[in-house]
């Protein structure tokens, strides 16, 4: 279980990017972090990946405080995929995926490491790219290779894994967005936990177990999609007219931005009037 206790972060200049935030995520839960630009989504993800040295608060993963673990110990439990990774030297794709296995071996990768790499490459459908140089790939292809690297890292580890993804769908086409979310839910259902920052709320609503909504560095909702994705919460977060209905084909909420709110969810007449389009 992921137990986040009072995590907060302020820049050296004194600007608070993340107010003290606490929440718990169970094993097997896939969680979307949504919110407008500058809401603190990436900051939250970074503080969970121990990237912010001066973040206060504690993050426990299965009772272990991440602060007390060495980078290698953390890497054996948690994989992170950043928004865009540009490499400074030319490396073939296979070597980049193998880097996910770096915490698992000392000098030479074992047979098991190579198997994990092959599995991750098949799993993310990047077989046709393995011998190409990473820097020669398109943005979407690079993203898929980084995802393959993260899957290789957490492949068959002996304790539950934590996967943190910062806008992983950015450059992916529609098919690969869905393929990728399928793979991530599959991974999560095997007793792992995944947090992903995402902008496409409707897409998130189809796959995730919980939604965390951030606004100005504060967690304003943390619940299942149908409970968190209300017109009130979304209007508060995005400051833009929104209508939430039930998805016609899936059992999930469907969010329509730029539409007037539904009659039964008039939040407050004065605000909603302001947004009459």
């Amino acid at each position, binding site marked *: 279980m992921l137990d986040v206790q009072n995590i907060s972060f302020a820049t050296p200049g004194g600007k608070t990017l993340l107010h003290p935030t606490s929440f718990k995520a169970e094993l097997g839960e896939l969680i979307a972090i949504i919110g407008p630009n500058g809401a603190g989504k990436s900051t939250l993800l970074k503080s969970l990946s121990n990237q912010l040295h001066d973040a206060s608060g504690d993050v426990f993963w299965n009772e272990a405080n991440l602060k007390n673990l060495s980078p290698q110990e953390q890497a*054996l439990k948690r994989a992170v995929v950043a928004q865009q990774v540009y490499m400074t*030297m030319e490396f073939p794709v296979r070597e980049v995926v193998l880097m996910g296995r770096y915490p698992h071996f000392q000098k030479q990768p074992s047979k098991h490491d190579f198997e994990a790499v092959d599995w991750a490459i098949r799993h993310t459908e990047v077989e046709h790219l393995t011998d190409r140089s990473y820097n020669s790939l398109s943005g979407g292809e690079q993203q898929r290779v980084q995802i393959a*690297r993260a899957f290789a890292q957490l492949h068959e580890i002996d304790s539950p894994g934590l996967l943190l993804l910062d806008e992983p769908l950015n450059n992916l086409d529609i098919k690969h967005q869905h393929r990728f979310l399928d793979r991530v839910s599959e991974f999560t259902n095997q007793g792992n936990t995944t947090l992903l920052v995402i902008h496409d709320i409707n897409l998130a609503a189809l796959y995730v177990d919980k939604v965390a909504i951030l606004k100005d560095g504060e967690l304003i909702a943390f619940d299942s999609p149908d409970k968190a994705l209300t017109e009130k919460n979304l209007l508060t977060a995005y400051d833009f007219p929104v209508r939430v209905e039930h998805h016609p084909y899936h059992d999930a909420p469907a969010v329509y931005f730029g539409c007037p709110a539904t009659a039964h969810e008039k939040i407050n007449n004065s605000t909603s009037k302001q947004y009459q389009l």
Partner: protein
Amino acid sequence: MTSGKRSILLTLLALLVTASIFVASGLGAVKITITEILDILLTKLGISNGQSQHEAVFWIIRLPRVLLSAFVGAGLAISGTAMQGIFRNPLADPSIIGISSGAASTASVFIVVLSAIMPQWYTMWGVSLLSIASFIGAALTAWLIFTISHTKRGADLATMLLAGIAINALGGAITGVMTFLADDVQLRSLTFWTLGSLGGATWQSAGIVAAITTVCLIFLIPISKGLNAMALGESEALHIGINVQSLKVRVIILTTLAVSATVAFCGIIGFIGLAVPHILRISFSSDNRFLLPASALGGALLLIWADTLSRTIAQPAEIPIGVITALTGAPVFLYLLIQQKRKAKYA
């Protein structure tokens, strides 16, 4: 690159270096044939009892010089490779970013000041004190460059190169002032620093540089995985279990050690740390598990032949080694800059 292919390439390079040591020791004003060399070596080992006339030339002048150039080349090339890894930039090179010049100018101040104030000390402890002085100079410069150019996304290229220009200019100016103040004897020794020469090679200097280069290799090879990971970015490296902070500290200390040792004995020899890793990267692989040992061998190979060229091309005079390495290295540097510009356009 598979580990099989890696071993084959490294073995080939090692054989090439060994062969070059023999051939290069034979070349010069006095030609020594390979059979003579073998005869001398066997005699030294007490196996044979040959009486080669060239024993002194080979044993006292040639062999230490060739060995020194091999180890200096190896040390400079692995320093370049490791620095490029942590700076996340293929343009990082001890001579370009000013570390060599930091070491040399500290050493030149040291030569002039110490030999003027305490001449007895200078004659007794000169060499070891000089090495310490150049180490301190190199370490301070490395730290300065790293602090100035460090950003969240790795070292900033423009800042790093500009800082290098400034430090090289400052180093040049300090050495200039020292040249002005120096007497004739000191002057000769100062010229040696700024242009670089392997002419002062002795068994002692070859031994010290060999020891330091070996230590660097022993401590750098185990972190080749970490250097690979750094290509992904600092936080990405951290996420795949690399202790980035300790990696950086280790590289800075070791490369400073290697560079200052070579500067202390041979002056500034530029471009080796830039050209060798670059050529190996484009011809074979950026994988540091291959690149680190291969640069050591490639650097040795390049400097052995550069030095042989410098002492044979205009016999009996010697062309400063720095001239030869700059002639080969500068085009590589320009090519790299153009490459980076192209990449930046599409990034």
